[in-house]
């Protein structure tokens, strides 16, 4: 009994200690919590709450790779240019520029009134420093290749050159930046709006070489030049930005605070929206779309993306060991024509997606102003069950007889599973083709795709910038993104020509011709073009939905 009493006392002490834990924990959070209860409560502060959807991996512009990171940095930084809501670059830190040498030389003239959040002026040296840093092998930036357009950028990154001074970016003086390119890049002005090409406060980084380590503990360390500055970063919880009093364009900024939540569960996000805990969310679960479709909060924002099926053309054998029927273009076309896309988009996904009969999505301007690349290019095929059956028979598999079982690969996700199931059912019903669905964990799936361990694989591509090239250069035979095994020298040639062509009309024409070839050979089967459905409270105004998937709140405001 005595031992028992000892034990009980130990338990009580344990309990008390934890009790204190609880008490302290609460205190700390309570202080931070009180401020963002809602908008316009105390001190009539204008606060916008957005669900970022996941924790940003890093807030170092040189190392960021994903949309969440870029969204945060979009609000804390300004590059030479800034994309407007149509995805067009507008002057930001650079107030004007000159393009020389057939597009191989750019001279940027910077504004003189742009300051860092600590009051120091932003100079051309900050850009030179940041770009060279992003290219340095030690930083090992994953997006360094975006700077390969710059002369010697790639060579410096791979270590072929060790002197950063040979890289083609130079601060001529405090407010003039000179950039030499390897080849003309028509969308270079868009590229400089990208985080990888943001300036960095050289004076801060020299003093803190580990930057941005530690900004979660000391947000003031995150010295930036954009409309907002970092106020608080609570990992996997929320990130708070507040208006930057030193911002050169601060009159356009109406919000006092931006709260970015990191709720990964889509259902929870919707519930938060319903419970007035958040003002804007992306990523509505398909099960809930019907409820919101007709409400004013439902927005379908544009996004450049295509969902398609990768076909393994490179393998002679299927995964099951039989002769690969997918090497015959008639089979590929038959499959493409036998899939009922509107069932998928209207009945399963329901977020306004458009069936795709080509690869490059709408939303990209063509050569002539006002015209859209997709509009000009048109559709390359249509769903025609009769024709599909004929093609299949021609290829030697009437009604699917003798057709080997195909493996359809997808990565773990509710959405991909549903689409896979639908396609499986359609191919079976319409063509008599048997398909087995294989679900793999994300990285295993990537590896399988890379190694050609599939017959058909689900895939999606989002544009990096607003130009058809971001979609088309993927299928060049030497591209690491080309998992199909398809190689067409004419295609490669056209893409190469387009890359070097300075006449925009000619360039666009080359790209149309390239897409013609892509769609004639069909190593990929397009399914639909992405949309970005969002739920936005009606009092949120003037946000910019950029078709690259980001949202820009610089000029947004709340109107109750």
């Amino acid at each position, binding site marked *: 009994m005595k031992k028992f009493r000892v034990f009980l006392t130990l338990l009580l002490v344990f309990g008390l200690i934890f009790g204190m*834990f609880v008490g302290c924990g609460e205190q700390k959070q309570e202080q931070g919590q009180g401020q963002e209860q809602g908008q316009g409560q105390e001190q009539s502060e204008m606060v916008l709450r957005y669900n970022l959807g996941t924790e940003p991996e890093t807030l170092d512009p040189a190392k960021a790779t994903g949309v969440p990171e870029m969204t945060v940095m979009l609000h804390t930084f300004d590059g030479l240019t800034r994309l407007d809501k149509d995805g067009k670059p507008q002057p930001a830190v650079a107030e004007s520029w000159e393009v020389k040498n057939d597009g191989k030389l750019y001279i940027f003239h910077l504004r003189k009134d742009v300051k860092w959040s600590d009051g120091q002026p932003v100079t051309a040296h900050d850009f030179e420093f940041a770009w060279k840093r992003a290219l340095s092998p030690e930083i*090992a930036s994953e997006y360094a290749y975006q700077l390969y357009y710059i002369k010697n950028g790639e060579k410096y*990154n791979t270590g072929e050159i060790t002197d950063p001074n040979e890289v083609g970016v130079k601060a001529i003086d405090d407010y003039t930046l000179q950039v030499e390119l390897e080849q003309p890049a028509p969308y270079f002005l868009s590229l400089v709006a990208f985080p990888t090409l943001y300036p960095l406060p050289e004076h801060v980084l020299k003093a803190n070489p580990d930057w941005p380590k530690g900004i*979660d503990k000391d947000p003031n360390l995150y010295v930036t030049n954009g409309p907002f500055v970092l106020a608080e970063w609570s990992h996997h919880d929320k990130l708070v930005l507040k208006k930057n009093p030193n911002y050169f364009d601060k009159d356009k900024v109406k919000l006092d605070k931006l709260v970015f939540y990191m*709720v990964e*569960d889509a259902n929870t996000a919707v*519930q938060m929206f319903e*419970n007035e805990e958040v003002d804007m969310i992306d990523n509505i679960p398909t099960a809930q779309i019907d409820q919101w479709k007709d409400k004013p909060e439902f927005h379908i924002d544009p996004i450049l993306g295509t969902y398609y099926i990768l076909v393994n053309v490179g393998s002679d054998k299927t995964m099951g060991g039989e002769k690969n029927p997918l090497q015959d273009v008639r089979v590929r076309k038959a499959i493409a024509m036998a899939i009922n896309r509107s069932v998928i988009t209207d009945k399963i996904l329901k977020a306004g997606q458009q069936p795709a009969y080509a690869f490059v999505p709408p939303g990209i301007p063509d050569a002539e102003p006002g015209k859209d690349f997709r509009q000009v290019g048109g559709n390359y095929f249509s769903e025609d069950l009769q024709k599909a059956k004929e093609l299949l028979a021609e290829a030697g598999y009437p009604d699917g007889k003798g057709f080997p079982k195909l493996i359809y690969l997808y990565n773990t996700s509710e959405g991909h599973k549903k689409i896979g199931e639908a396609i499986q059912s359609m191919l079976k019903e319409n063509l008599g083709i048997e398909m087995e669905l294989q679900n793999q964990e994300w990285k295993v799936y990537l590896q399988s795709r890379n190694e050609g361990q599939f017959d058909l694989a689900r895939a999606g591509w989002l544009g990096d910038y607003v130009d058809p090239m971001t979609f088309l250069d993927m299928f060049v035979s030497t591209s690491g993104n080309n998992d199909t095994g398809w190689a067409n020298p004419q295609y490669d040639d056209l893409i190469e020509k387009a890359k070097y062509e300075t006449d925009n009309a000619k360039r666009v024409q080359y790209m149309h011709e390239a897409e013609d070839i892509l769609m004639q050979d069909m190593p990929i089967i397009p399914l639909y073009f992405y949309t970005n459905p969002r739920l936005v409270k009606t009092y949120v105004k003037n946000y910019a939905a950029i078709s690259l998937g980001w949202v820009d709140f610089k000029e947004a405001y709340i109107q109750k």
Partner: protein
Amino acid sequence: MGRFIVRRLALMVIALWVVVTVTFFLAHMIPGGPFDREKPVPEAIKKNLEEKYHLNEPMWKQYLLYLNDIIHGDLGPSFKYPDRTVNDIIKESFPVSAQLGFWAVLMATFVGISLGSVSALHQGELIDSFSMFFAILFISLPSFVIAPIFQYIFGVKLHWLPVANWGSWKHMILPALSLALGPTAVIARLTRASMLEVLSNDYVKAARARGLSGLRVLIVYALKNALIPVVTYLFPLIAAIFTGSFVVEKIFNIPGLGRYYVTSIYNRDYTVILGVTVFYAAFLILMNLLADITYALLDPRIRYE
């Protein structure tokens, strides 16, 4: 007892070493690495990354490097979150999970044991059947089903509690409840089953025959021995709940340690995988040691040679 504890701690170090080794090699054996993305990085960049993180060295060398770090208490930087170290990650997220876990375990233990004991004492009566049905119900509805239901009822519909996130006592209620329901049911059933055994023992019958009241009999005689299976279940449960539940933390967006278990594997974030695994292993083994000590306290006949 003292020697016993020392021996157990020594064994714990060996066990931890085995866990680290097995996990290390398993993690590196599965395909995919931390820098595999849908848009594959060019070779040159991949090379830079691999050099920076020693991923291009032979496996045994990476292993020894890692062991060396871990012995010095350095769990390394995260691959996925390059500006954070694993030590920081655990330091910041564990207290959150532990707080949540504490309340969940407290709830489950008290409600579970009470419910189980009452059911055992009134075997076959209405309250017994009632509690059994509830237990089955809660076991059959896992946390990822119950949590959204709670969120809907108490958040969206009644507006009593916030739907998610962390920061005040209000934010703790729904996740703690979601965490506690399953274990409550298990503890209740375990207590009941083993209580029934104990109650039919001769010495209990004797006590009752002597005229001692039910409650006294319960607490003084029956409970101690009946609790042994409950203790067996409870201590590892503490280790598991305190280190966080992936499902509950994801649904309620709680910045705890639990999410890292699954996401680190998904991301192939080797250092985080190993860091959280070792942390959990140490906690677990410690809990089991406490369990064994508790057995000896509950039943003085138990001996550890």
